[in-house]
């Protein structure tokens, strides 16, 4: 159960994001369903996280946790509170200094039965074309073959809040969820990641 303040904050954010973007979810290829899933999407803005969170139905929102970069999202107490209490994200560290496998927190969450939201590009792109996917998605698919992999395309969010701006602008955005995919038997890592990326990009035009 979320504490009161987090609850109010999440309602406020939901309202705000609906007014600014419409936060439309388009389910092409799979219905919203309470099964364990890994949603993977393109990444162009910090608002992506909020966007995909707001687009999910209420019932799924509580059991779906996004991955967020630890260094950025724990920089200030407010950011940390927001990502912990409101979004309940899973932190991953981007620097490779520690010995721990950076995917360890993700394994833990998936073992608990949570669904996760992943941005396999690892960092925000600015060109419009998603960058090549990092290997994390492949490793997760390999380790958890029963979790459903759902590609998603987040449209337009980069226009809401471009890098370096503070005031967001209202632009209609949408999240398109595609047909679930699976890791083929003995499928090569690079081939799988390329296929996953293509599945995300293909959703841009439906």
């Amino acid at each position, binding site marked *: 159960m979320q504490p009161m303040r987090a609850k109010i904050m999440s309602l406020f954010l939901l309202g705000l994001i609906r007014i600014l973007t419409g936060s439309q979810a388009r389910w092409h290829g799979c219905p919203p369903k309470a099964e364990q899933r890994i949603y993977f999407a393109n990444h162009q803005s910090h608002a992506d996280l909020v966007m995909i969170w707001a687009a999910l139905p209420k019932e799924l929102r509580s059991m779906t946790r996004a991955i967020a970069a630890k260094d950025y999202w724990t920089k200030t107490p407010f950011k940390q509170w927001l990502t912990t209490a409101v979004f309940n994200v899973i932190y991953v560290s981007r620097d490779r200094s520690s010995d721990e496998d950076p995917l360890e927190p993700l394994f833990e969450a998936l073992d608990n039965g949570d669904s996760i939201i992943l941005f396999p590009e690892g960092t925000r792109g600015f060109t419009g074309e998603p960058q090549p996917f990092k290997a994390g998605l492949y490793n997760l698919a390999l380790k958890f073959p029963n979790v459903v992999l759902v590609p998603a395309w987040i449209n337009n969010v980069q226009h809401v809040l*471009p890098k370096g701006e503070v005031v967001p602008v209202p632009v*209609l955005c949408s999240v398109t969820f595609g047909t679930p995919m699976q890791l083929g038997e003995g499928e090569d890592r690079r081939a799988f990641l390329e296929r996953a990326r293509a599945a995300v990009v293909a959703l841009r035009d439906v």
Partner: protein
Amino acid sequence: MFQMYYYLRDLSPTQQIGMLFVIVFGVLLLASVGAFLLSVREHADEARADFWRKELKSLDAMLRTSWLMVFVFWIGWALGDWVALTLFALVSFFALREFLTLSPTRLGDHRSLVLAFFAVLPVQYALVGGGYFDMFAVFIPVYVFLALPLASALANDPMRFLERSAKLQWGIMVCIYGMSHVPAILMLKFPGYEGRNAFMVFFLVAVVQVCMVTQHIAAQRMRRKPIAPAISQSFNWDSWGLGVLVGSLFGALLAGITPWVPGTAFAAAFIACSAGGLGHFVMKALKRDRGIPNWGAEGQSVTGAGGLLDRVDGLCFAAPVFFHSARWYFGV
């Protein structure tokens, strides 16, 4: 008949407006019940059933828009001018959001967009609310149109600068400037017509809506050669003329709720309908430029736009023209 007329005339303005809502809600209710009954009817063959399904779908969309509009008016009227103003400001906001989503801007326009949504829009509606009509008429065409390109230029991005400025200015002109003239009618002081301005707003919206619906149906039924097929497959002078004529005649019928005699009401409705019908056509050209059939065709748009602009674009063109001709006529 005449007794009824005198009875209605002797009611207070508040009672009259209340009566108007009762009538309009009643008509809408009848239409909705009729549409529902048609939708459950059995059909002999599949082709006919399919035809009716399509007909009913567009009818249904129209009915829903009308319910929404009447509901907005009712809320606005029941809760006062400022609430009505806020509601129209929200319509402006959502319409502009739709317009700008489908006319993508560059990152350099971010500051101008922030200004458009969070400064220009509230200020314009505040000017309406305060009744500063001289300032309200020139605020956007003069001051905003000089200030916004400045904000864009300061962003240091010359790429397609003229095109981007034009897009933003058009969006503001149609969605904010045009729309804000509808509630502005509430603030005008027509001689001997105090407390009844809501009727004038209703008059404007009703005649424009009747004109648009007639034009739409006429274009489908008459199947005349389109004038500009590259822009609209349906627009032709005959159906446009018919729409304007029916809208204006409807306006003449509504003369009782305006400060005008039927002839003048006809003329006022004629001006509003002509502008509305042609404005809708102009907006079609803009949509074609963007390569979309509708601002928010259901199931087709990537943006999830609700298609609000499709429904109000005629009004956005009709309102300023109607407003200024009414002001000029009464010299207020």
